[in-house]
């Protein structure tokens, strides 16, 4: 090959690299390993962890251990899906494109909205994109985020807001939920959006109907984040006037994987389609009149519009969206309803069982679905650590995330947890 190129050695091809910046030494990295050695090194690292899936886990807070049907990973492992690039050549990408079209439909069905995009990085970034989109639509600068939204998401929102493109005001939480009257004092005619999450970070359902009215009364958009696993049992946000619905799609068929990759989903009303960020797939026909799918509405996107684009995003989490679509196909309406019902029933059972130990107080009384917070009467961090030793991930110790929530423990219950496991958690905690 060198001869065909007409050079004597490989370094001739690097002559355009100025001598001053050539790396005149080998990289200071270990020698390469055989496949067997690489595999054992990775296995050793994996074995140095105690995954939540090998504990009896009640951890949630945005990332959930739901059952993943066997078919999901078998589809995701198809190399035609995972080794493909973005479907810019539609004739050779109908698999990816049709799946995205089906995924968009499923997200619309879950949320009750008109249109959805092809997915985003995660729930937090979808949430921020919703704030930015609302600002573009309303031509207003301020967004009001309620304090009961996931604290990490609020940090991400603040980080993006440092650009000066939006200003963030936070509505305080009262007894674990948002009082619409308090929100109404902060939402005014300079507000682009009221951003809420329901269930909220500590598991409670917000009064979406009243909050939606607060937003709309001021001409602001109503942005709602939901947990899609509950979409079989909870009324969709569209019924409460949501203009944009976002969320983290990990619970739908994606492993927890230390919090990534999951996927953000993003849906809105038809009227706002032109301001939607991210990729969108549409159905059309080919020259022979056959139905086919293609990336569309691209005049919103960065490769056409550059600095005038709706977002700089130029990817989506297509493979995670594929997992979500296969998951939703596998469970269907009945399965999604059964999963949601199981989570709600088991969460209510566990809360009673834990309160019965006498070791917890209930700080809040609002309705909840699959997740709830209790206050541990002793040292929550010590309890949590001891329970790990006993084989339980006893929820999430909220004091470790936010000192303001010291003493609170957030328990999530998925359909994977059995009555026996919950009873033994209560028994072990009682014995402390």
């Amino acid at each position: 090959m060198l001869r065909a190129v007409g050079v004597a050695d490989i370094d001739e091809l690097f002559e355009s690299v100025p001598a001053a910046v050539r790396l005149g030494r080998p990289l200071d990295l270990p020698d390469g390993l055989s496949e067997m050695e690489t595999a054992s090194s990775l296995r050793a690292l994996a074995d140095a962890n105690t995954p939540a899936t090998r504990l009896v886990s009640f951890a949630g807070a945005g990332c959930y251990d739901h059952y993943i049907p066997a078919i999901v990973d078998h589809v995701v492992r198809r190399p035609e899906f995972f080794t493909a690039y973005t479907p810019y050549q539609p004739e050779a990408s109908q698999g990816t494109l049709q799946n995205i079209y089906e995924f968009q439909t499923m997200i619309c069905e879950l949320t009750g909205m008109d249109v959805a995009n092809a997915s985003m990085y995660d729930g937090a970034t979808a949430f921020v994109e919703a704030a930015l989109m609302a600002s573009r639509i309303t031509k207003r600068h301020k967004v009001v985020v309620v304090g009961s939204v996931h604290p990490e998401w609020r940090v991400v929102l603040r980080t993006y807001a440092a650009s000066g493109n939006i200003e963030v005001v936070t509505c305080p939480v009262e007894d674990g939920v948002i009082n619409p009257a308090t929100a109404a004092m902060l939402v005014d005619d300079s507000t682009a959006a009221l951003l809420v999450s329901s269930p909220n970070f500590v598991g409670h359902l917000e009064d979406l109907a009243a909050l939606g009215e607060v937003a709309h009364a001021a001409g602001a958009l109503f942005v709602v984040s939901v947990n899609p696993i509950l979409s079989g049992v909870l009324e969709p946000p569209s019924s409460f006037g949501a203009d944009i619905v976002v969320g983290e799609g990990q619970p739908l068929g994606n492993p927890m994987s230390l919090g990534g990759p999951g996927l953000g989903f993003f849906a809105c009303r038809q009227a706002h389609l032109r301001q939607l960020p991210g990729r969108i797939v549409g159905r059309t026909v080919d020259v022979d009149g056959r139905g086919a799918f293609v990336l569309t509405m691209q005049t919103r996107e960065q490769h056409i519009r550059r600095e005038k684009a709706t977002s700089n995003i130029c990817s989506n989490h297509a493979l995670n969206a594929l997992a979500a679509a296969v998951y939703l196909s596998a469970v269907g309406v009945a399965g999604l309803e059964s999963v949601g019902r199981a989570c709600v029933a088991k969460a209510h059972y566990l809360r009673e069982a834990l309160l019965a130990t006498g070791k917890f107080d209930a700080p809040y009384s609002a309705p909840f679905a699959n997740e709830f917070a209790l206050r541990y009467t002793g040292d929550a961090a010590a309890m949590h650590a001891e329970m790990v030793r006993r084989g339980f991930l006893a929820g999430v110790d909220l004091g470790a995330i936010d000192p303001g929530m010291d003493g609170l423990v957030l328990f999530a219950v998925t359909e994977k947890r059995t009555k026996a496991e919950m009873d033994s958690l209560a028994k072990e905690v009682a014995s402390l």
Partner: protein
Amino acid sequence: MTASDARFPKDAPVRGPRALIFETGSPESRCVEAPALDVPDVSLDEALAGEVRTQPPALPHVTEVEIARHYHHLATMNFGVDSGPYPLGSCTMKYNPRLNEDACRLEGFAGLHPYQPLETIQGGLALMVGLADALAEITGLPGVTLQPAAGAHGEFTAIMMFRAYHTAMGDPRKRVVIPDAAHGTNPATVHMAGYEVTTIASDANGAVDLEALKAALDTDVAALMLTNPNTLGLFDPNIVAITEAVHAVGALAYCDGANMNAIMGKARPGDMGFDAMHINLHKTFSTPHGGGGPGAGPVCVTAALTPFLPGPLPVRLDDGTYGVGWTERSIGRVRSSFGNFGVFVRAYAYVLALGGDGLRAASEQAVLSANYMKEKLKGTYPLPYDRPCMHEFVLSGSRLRKEHGVHTLDVAKRLLDYGIHPPTIYFPLIVDESIMFEPTETESLEDIDRMIEVMLTIAAEAASDPDLLHGAPYSTPVRRLDEARAVKQPDLRWRPSSAE
């Protein structure tokens, strides 16, 4: 093959469009449900305060075999790296090692919850520290965040760090300078970060026009964003003068790392004077593109910018264990959790398998392969910038258009009939009818020779039968699409009523 070809019965298993999954199966079809409840059922209406769903979502009704066949069919309509050569310029479509796919699925990785106690995720933290250290060595930039989910996300992270840095110096500044050959994400990122874009033209060699750059630089400029090697596949020979000019006005230099696959172990952006860059793990470090994601876009920065990194940062502690930390002036977070951890596992596996010498050899082979292809094709397809390229090169389809009325798009579509994924086309914008090839180091000489042969054959077809190319492709599951109709009559979702 045509629909009326008697050799193929009407129901022959041709790779054509398939009904939507919503139109598959029957209302009785079931696949997976939760086990029977082992706790007392609750009244949903009571528990959920009346917010119980009344109208169920219209999800598919399918059995497992129907799911398997549906997605099998969809898979056969896709082209991936495993399907054949994928020389997509700027995207680095190298082979995705299978060990990495297995590794990220180990329960000790895939089963981790982001809020587990740190003592229970020591292996995960060690892996992230190991990957960050390797990226620091490869880029020559010591501060690393793995958090950004993609290249564009990494760009945003870095420009927000620049904003924080300049603000700490007393003035956030107003503008970011970008060459006209840049990826569209660069200006879009600048806007999201609250800056104005100043575009400068490239010089006659496709490099940064140093005089134009100097004219654009003043103390209002926060940064220059530059892809080096650039989008023509050329290393900018003035790189040191460029970063010095940027620094002379107190601005910072950002390297778009899309083309890192050319220079691993050969040259480091940190040594060129860049202050920050992103790495596309899904390009350079072999993690799969997944049909559009997930990828990961770690950002590497100088020591001066390290205090502004987003958190949390996995760190090695003095006692040999691992923890997480936040820098004192962190910009915050750009997403939840640590980032796309499953992608980190794959990338770290790649670093372990190749080692320092292997990474250098990968870049050398990528550059050699690109130059080999370029030399064999430049006699037929004009090469506007004729000098040794890095890992990719940009040809022009202008001659085929002038002589035969065949466009680059036609050439690209015809490649599909030969089982080759088209290169990147019509980018960069500064080359007429551009065709950007990036063979990557994982294509064999045999496959590279075949790509060359096919490109020469297509040029001959353009001369002898241009309409053949205008109509291509013929062998794909669908042919050219009516993209205008997709825009004019948006059909972005299936609706239950359309099932009739």
